[in-house]
């Protein structure tokens, strides 16, 4: 009997090895952290977005040139005065539990976003809608006065308070995706768990192992062309270097962040793709916490940063930035903003009452635990020491915890990125208005708000550029509630046998057309 055991074991082993050798048709990519939320009224970040844009869709969708195309709405009409948009929803869309998708689902989702009880940071996204801001601030209690109307089951009408040239881009964004009122009310905060959630996109959320893996499977009842991949796994890997090893051993097919020093190794390989990115990386202040309640101190800190040095450390094709609207978008103003000037930094700090940094309270620079963030933070720490004579403490936390900290008790200096929600400068500049839920600087400036509102109403491109120029001067030169550091670039590793993946400048991760040749 003992002699028979060994050959049996060898046989079993060889069988299992055989099945592993065949190419697994599951497409795997790396998510750089646990998604903070899959509730699309509440999600604000790019990690959650990667999952959301594959399990749901909205009225409109961007094509690969970032031009809005019909999605769940087959067509739309705009009134002559530019204030009323009527969306005609396709009649064949079903939720993945079989129920038909109607205009009521859009109405519920947009109402939930604006409802002050939801406390959605992105509520301001719909403030162009008539009375939306009033309802969200609590001034208006009756939601029926807000400019949204269900004309019939398949017609959804939106009335704006003023015409806005960019508005057709707004319904592409995940916070405007339709939502099932009965599901949300039945399951409460757990409605996004895989066994509860109901979606209508090309994929279904079939499993979510927190901090480990998110699994999506093809949705058989999707209204459009069925997705090509049968299954997608998003592996949650915090360490970039681990992701690289997984890529090299063929365990994942797509990585969208490469550690700076590994970039050189991949630059000439066929797996490497470099693409532009409408995304800015900035350090923000909490303008209510000393010493950053003094604009001269903020200016001084900005003058002391040599952005070229930061970019040469990261080696990823990033572009040093002194103004806020990114390169590639109209409204880009390379001449605006604060550049590197060590003397000016010191003199401003002295003018503010802190010559050579004497008398300053303890300053903490807070960042989310990513290796490239750590490199930038250490560099900025040494630049501030060298040019201002100040020792700054570094602290870091994991992404989900970090975002929470920014909302509850904003530190003195912190970092964030902002990727375009749609390719228009209004989206970038609106971030720092007094009513933006995503504005962590606590900076409230009437002049700035007015400029942004004017720019939203203006249709003449040249006039808009002027307005946005003034806004950026106020934002990055005069008041400086934030310091732009650089515009990002996309550094992607994709297995050559993967077809159907096209990077776009907004890094919207659409995976339904991905195909793997074995």
């Amino acid at each position, binding site marked *: 009997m003992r002699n028979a055991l060994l050959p049996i074991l060898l046989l079993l082993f060889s069988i299992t090895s055989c099945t592993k050798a065949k190419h697994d048709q599951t497409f795997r990519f790396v998510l750089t952290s646990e998604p903070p939320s899959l509730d699309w009224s509440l999600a604000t970040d790019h990690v959650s977005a990667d999952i959301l844009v594959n399990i749901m869709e909205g009225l409109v969708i961007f094509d690969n040139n970032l031009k809005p195309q019909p999605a769940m709405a087959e067509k739309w009409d705009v009134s002559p005065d530019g204030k009323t948009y009527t969306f005609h929803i396709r009649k064949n869309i079903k939720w993945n539990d079989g129920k038909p998708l109607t205009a009521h689902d859009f109405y519920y989702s947009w109402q939930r976003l604006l409802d002050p009880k939801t406390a959605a940071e992105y509520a301001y996204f719909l403030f162009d809608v008539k009375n939306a801001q009033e309802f969200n601030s609590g001034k208006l209690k009756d939601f029926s006065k807000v400019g949204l109307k269900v004309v019939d089951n398949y017609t959804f009408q939106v009335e704006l308070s003023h015409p806005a040239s960019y508005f057709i881009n707004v319904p592409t964004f995940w916070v405007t995706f339709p939502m099932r009122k009965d599901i949300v009310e039945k399951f409460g905060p757990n409605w996004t768990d895989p066994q509860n959630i109901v979606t209508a996109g090309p994929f279904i959320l079939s499993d979510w192992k927190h901090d480990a893996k998110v699994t999506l499977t093809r949705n058989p009842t999707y209204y459009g062309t069925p997705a090509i991949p049968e299954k997608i796994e998003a592996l949650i890997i915090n360490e*970039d*270097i681990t992701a*690289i090893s997984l890529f090299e051993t063929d365990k994942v097919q797509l990585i969208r962040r490469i*550690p*700076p*020093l*590994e970039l*050189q*190794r991949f630059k000439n390989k066929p797996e490497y793709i470099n693409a532009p990115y409408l995304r800015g990386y900035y350090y923000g202040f909490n303008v209510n916490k000393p010493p950053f309640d003094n604009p001269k101190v903020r200016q001084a800190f900005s003058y002391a940063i040599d952005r070229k*040095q930061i970019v*040469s*450390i990261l080696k990823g094709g990033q572009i040093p930035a002194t103004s806020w609207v990114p390169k590639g978008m109209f409204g880009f103003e390379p001449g605006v903003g604060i550049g590197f000037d060590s003397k000016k930094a010191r003199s401003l700090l002295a003018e503010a009452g802190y010559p050579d940094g004497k008398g300053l309270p303890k300053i903490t620079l807070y960042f989310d*635990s990513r*290796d490239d963030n*750590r*490199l930038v*933070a*250490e*560099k900025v*720490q*040494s630049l501030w*020491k*060298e040019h201002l004579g100040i020792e700054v*403490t*570094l*602290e*870091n936390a994991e992404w989900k915890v970090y975002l929470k900290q920014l909302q509850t008790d904003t530190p003195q200096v912190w970092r964030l990125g902002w990727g375009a929600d749609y390719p228009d400068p209004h989206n970038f500049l609106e971030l720092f208005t007094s009513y933006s839920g995503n504005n962590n600087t606590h900076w409230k400036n009437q002049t700035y708000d007015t400029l942004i509102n004017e720019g939203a109403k203006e249709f003449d491109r040249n006039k808009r550029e002027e307005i946005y120029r003034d806004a950026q001067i106020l934002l990055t030169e005069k008041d400086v509630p934030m310091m732009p550091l650089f515009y990002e670039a996309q550094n992607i590793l994709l297995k050559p046998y993967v077809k159907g993946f096209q990077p776009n400048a907004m890094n919207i991760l659409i995976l339904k057309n991905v195909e793997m040749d074995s």
Partner: protein
Amino acid sequence: MKTAAGVLGKVQATRSASLWNDAWRRLKKNKVAVISLIYTLFICLVALLANHLAPYSYKDPIGDPNLFSTLFPSLKFPFGTDQLSRDLFSRCIYGAQMSMSVGIVTAVSSLVLGLIYGGISGYVGGRLDGVLMRIVDVLFSFPSLLLIILIQSMIGRGLLGIYLALTIVGWVSTARLVRGQVLQVKEMVYVEAARSIGSRGTMIVFRHIFPNILGPLIVTLTFNIPNNILAESFLSFLGLGVPPPYASWGSLARDGYQALQTYPHLIFFPSILIFLVVLAFNLLGDGLRDALDPKMKR
């Protein structure tokens, strides 16, 4: 004929055979232990004189990041440079200062704490001993990493946090050891004799008990130091250790980990330094234990 003075002279000429001299002689014969002792003393010296020995600063970049960023080891930069164009050799020297100071200070502090606690528990005995040891048992079963994270979140991430955290986690095992040793020595004949002639407690403790447990204590210290160096390296690697721009060997290893495949020198040098120092302390500890064991007759 030999005079009395001549005989006396010969008696005085023999070396005094105290425990310490015996131990030192035995240690000297152990070649491995001697090498380890020399190496640890050498590293301690480097750590003390870090400011004078390091050719460059540990936190300031050498120059233009385009020219000096991540260079491989060369004559000018024996360990190469890192991603922020800082000289790795200088950083390793400062790393020695950081790692050694954390390792030694926390080991000594936990030893002192454990000595007092375990000494009282062992000497007083009875119910107090039982209570104190039960407390120790509870603390011992706490996962040390969690305790360290907890302490750091209360005190903050700085140097004080690391020192306190490692000390608090380390004193428990020393307390147990000391208590065991004290119990053992307490029963020895000479202690009984001292008590019988009326010596007071403190005198017994300082003149009889303490010197006799010193041997095992020193050996324990020599083993705790590398444990604490490793613990600090591990914490720094996780991101919980010394904050930037300070550098310990563990945080250097962490920085180097990002470029493992492309620039392995960044993680190799700090790692090998940790390895050598831990090995040296362990070998020294082995040698000391053999040397101080009075039962071994050579």
